[in-house]
Structures are given as C-alpha cells and as structure tokens.
C-alpha cells in the first residue's frame, strides 16, 4: 500500500515536470536549438533509435566490463589490505592520493597510452568503480563483531577460515551498498572518457551533437544515459534491499 502511494507520487511528479517543461517550451516559443520539449526529444529518440541503441550498447558494454573489473580489483585489494594490515598502513596515503586525484585529468594519459575508444573508457571506469568497493569491503571486514572472532578462535579456526566464514558474509551488505555507488561511478568513468577519447558510445554522441548544434539529439543521448543510469542504480538498490534491508528501519520524524 505504502509502496503504491510512493510510486504514485513519483509518477505524478514526473508527469507534472514533463508537462510544465512542454508548456514552457511551447508557450515561450523556445527554439529547439536551445531547449527541445519532451515531445521533440521523444520523436528524436524514435527516429534515431537504431544508432542510439548501438551507442548505448557500446556504453553499457564498457560500463559492465569496467564495473566487473573494478569490483574484482576492489574486493581483492580490500581482502589483502585487511589480511595484511601493515600493508594497509603503508598504502593508505597512496590510496588516498589516488582517490582524490580527479579522474578526468587521468583520461588524457590513458588516451595517450592506449588510443581512442574502449581501453581508456574501461580503465577510467575501473579507476572510479573500485574505490567505493574497496572502502566498503574494508569497513565490512573491520566491523566484524569481536565476540564472533573470539569464539571462532577458541574453537581453533585459522585466520583465513575466520575471514571466509564470518568476514565475507558480514561484508555482503557493505558490498551491495557499494554497488550502488560503484555502478553509477563506472558509468561516469565511461562517459567522461567517451566525451574526451572515443568515436562511439553515448558520451561521444552527446559531445558530437553539441558540436553540430543538434540539441534534440543531445537530449536523446542524455535520456538514454539516464535510462542506463537508473537501471544500474535500480539493480544495485534491489540487491541491497534484499540483503541489507535491516539497515533501513524506516524511522520518520
């Protein structure tokens, strides 16, 4: 019941926003080259559906590869850093520096080293996606209840066994929460890289249509991107709700 009400609210808001946007464009006689209305964008989406689909698939492919590799890198590095905590101490400043470095300025380096296209996009996606995974894996592994660890140790478990039997399950909610950031982050990485260093993909479509003043096409590209972004977020949120629902206790002021 509560869910349907929420959905209804969301739907009404979106309809109101779209309607007032259309009205604003029509009544204000705003040119398509400045701000196209939703109907114009919808028409462009339909008429350019085949190239848009192709570019979307390219972007989606790069994002999923970058995301997957980012998760692998983040999880492996996280487990390693927790297992050998001196390594964590030693690498912490370096990791902070890497985290802080704006990834957009790294794209030109990737461009220089690997050329245009998929490789710099995937590298940028990995560099953005693995940080939330890494920090959450570490937080998850460190937040293990010490009584559990003591109990297992008393029963004669080895360090690796404790990590596997208690650490990993305890980390899952953190991991799923991190997916919610890492997925969109991977998409951002891909788009940024495509805007600067690619000749296909949605990032390229958006920059290119801006350069030739085809604003409806640009909006259509952004709409495709939004769809991909919402889908990624939705999938991650679904998994999070399933595995970490206890974190949202639903208190309201």
């Amino acid at each position, binding site marked *: 019941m509560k869910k349907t009400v929420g959905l209804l609210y969301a739907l009404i808001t979106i309809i109101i926003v779209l309607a007032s946007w259309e009205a604003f464009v029509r009544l204000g006689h705003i040119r398509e080259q400045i701000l196209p209305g939703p109907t114009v964008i919808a028409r462009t989406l339909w008429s350019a559906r085949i190239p848009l689909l192709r570019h979307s698939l390219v972007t989606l492919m790069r994002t999923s590869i970058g995301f997957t590799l980012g998760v692998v890198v983040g999880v492996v590095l996280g487990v390693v850093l927790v297992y050998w905590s001196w390594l964590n101490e030693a690498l912490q400043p370096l990791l902070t*520096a890497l985290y802080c470095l704006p990834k957009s300025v790294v794209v*030109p380096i990737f461009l220089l080293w690997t050329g245009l296209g998929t490789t710099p996009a995937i590298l940028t996606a990995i560099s953005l996606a693995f940080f939330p995974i890494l920090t959450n894996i570490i937080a998850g592994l460190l937040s293990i209840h010490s009584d559990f660890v003591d109990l297992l140790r008393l029963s004669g478990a080895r360090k690796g066994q404790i990590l596997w039997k208690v650490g990993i399950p305890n980390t899952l909610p953190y991991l799923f929460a991190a997916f919610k950031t890492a997925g969109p982050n991977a998409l951002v990485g891909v788009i940024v890289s495509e805007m600067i260093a690619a000749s296909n993909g949605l990032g390229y479509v958006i920059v290119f249509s801006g350069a030739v003043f085809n604003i409806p096409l640009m909006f259509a590209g*952004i709409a495709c991107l939004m769809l991909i972004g919402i889908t990624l977020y939705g999938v991650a949120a679904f998994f999070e709700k399933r595995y970490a629902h206890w974190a949202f206790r639903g208190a309201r002021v």
Partner: protein
Amino acid sequence: MVLMHLANRLSRIFLTLGIFFLLGILWEIAAKVFKIPTPILPPISDVLKYLIHSYKILLPDVFITLYRALLGLGLGTVFGLLLGFALGYSNYFYNSLYPLLIALYSIPKQALVPLIVLWTSFGTVPAVITALLTSFFPVVVNTTTGIMTLDPDLVALARIYGATKWRLFVKIAIPHSMPYFFAALKVAGVGALVGATLSEMIGAQTGVGHKVLMASVKFQTLELFSYVILIGLVSVLLYWLLTAVDRHIVWWAYRWRERL
C-alpha cells in the same frame, strides 16, 4: 604517552614518504631501463625538473581551476544541505521530490557539460555550474539518508517527552545527519574538481582541464604529468581539509573507532 603518539605519527609520515619515494624510483627505473620515449612516459626526474623550472607558468591555471571548483562546491553544498533538510523534514517533499532527485542523480552530471557550455558561455561559468551539479547531489542524498536512518526508539523517546516536530528535527534529526553530510562533503569536494576540469576540457581556454588535454594531444608529457601532479596535490589538500573539518565538528561520530 604524548611522546609515543608523536613517535607513531613520525613513523607514519616516514612510511608515507618512503612509499612515494619508492614509487618515484620505480617510475624512474621503468622509464629509463625500458627506454620508454618521453612522449609516452617521461622519467619522473625530468617531470619534477620541469615542474620546478616552470611552476610560474603552471600555477595560474591550477588556481583558476581551484577557484572554479571551490565556488561550485560552496554553492552546491549550500543548496544541497537546504534541500536535504527540506526532504528530511517533510514527508510531502520527500515523496514527491525524492524519486525525481534519484532519477537526476543517476544521470552522470558530466554528460550535461556540453549542454551547459551551449547554454551559458565558455570558461568559468560552465565550470562552476558543473562543479555545483556534481557536488550538489551527494550532499542532498546523504543528508536525506542521514535523517531517514534515525533510530525509531530515539524518536519515540523524544515524543514521549513531548518534543514537537520542529524540536525533534533540530535536536535529533539534524545532528544525526551531520556525519552523513560531512562524508558527502568529502565526495563532493573530489567531484567538484572532476566537474570543473571536465568542463574545462570541453569548453574553456584556461584551467588545468584544458591544458592537460592540449598537452596530451600535443604529446607534451612533461607538461601533462606536471599538471596531473599539481592538481593531485590540490585535491589531496582539499580532501585533508574537509576530513579535518569533519573530525572537528562531528568528532562524536568517530567514537567507536577508538575501540578498534
């Protein structure tokens, strides 16, 4: 006790310096031993030499980028915090605006840069707006989440004592959301720099973003790596600053760490 603390700190600083030194040596060896041509990877010694030699040419663009990013970050934070409070306070706002916000949140704001450039102008204005957009969303979402994850028992207790909705909000909800807000601020700081530099790559003639891209296209790797190092330093300093602010204002949120 104090002495031990100091020794601990000093050893950490040395460790940090050591790691970076080691990395520099590895870079130097990689570039020299494998004879990687300078247009691909110049030895770090050459980069540092260039950096020291021509910092007067490099620094102005770094400051321009920093100015744009900070202005965007400030505006984005203020707007984000206000909207976050509104969403947390009112069910009506939350129900109607939050889905829209999540929808907007999931578009990479970076994709809007060409549009912002077309709508406004070249240079500072689109860079500030992009930085504002990239820093705004994490702040709103985290502030709202902070209020949404309030402990129900705490709210119930305050209600029993006769707290009004407004007092509940000011005394419990806002303080509870602060650690979330400051966590978001750190993300937003980095995001603002990404937004500003990206906007400069697409629509500006000044700033680190523009210079880096130009240097890459012209294979001027000394300049490229110098700018990357400088902007990296700037972002680390910004992050440290925000972390320090976080620790000072919401120190109570870190109490549990002492037990680890």
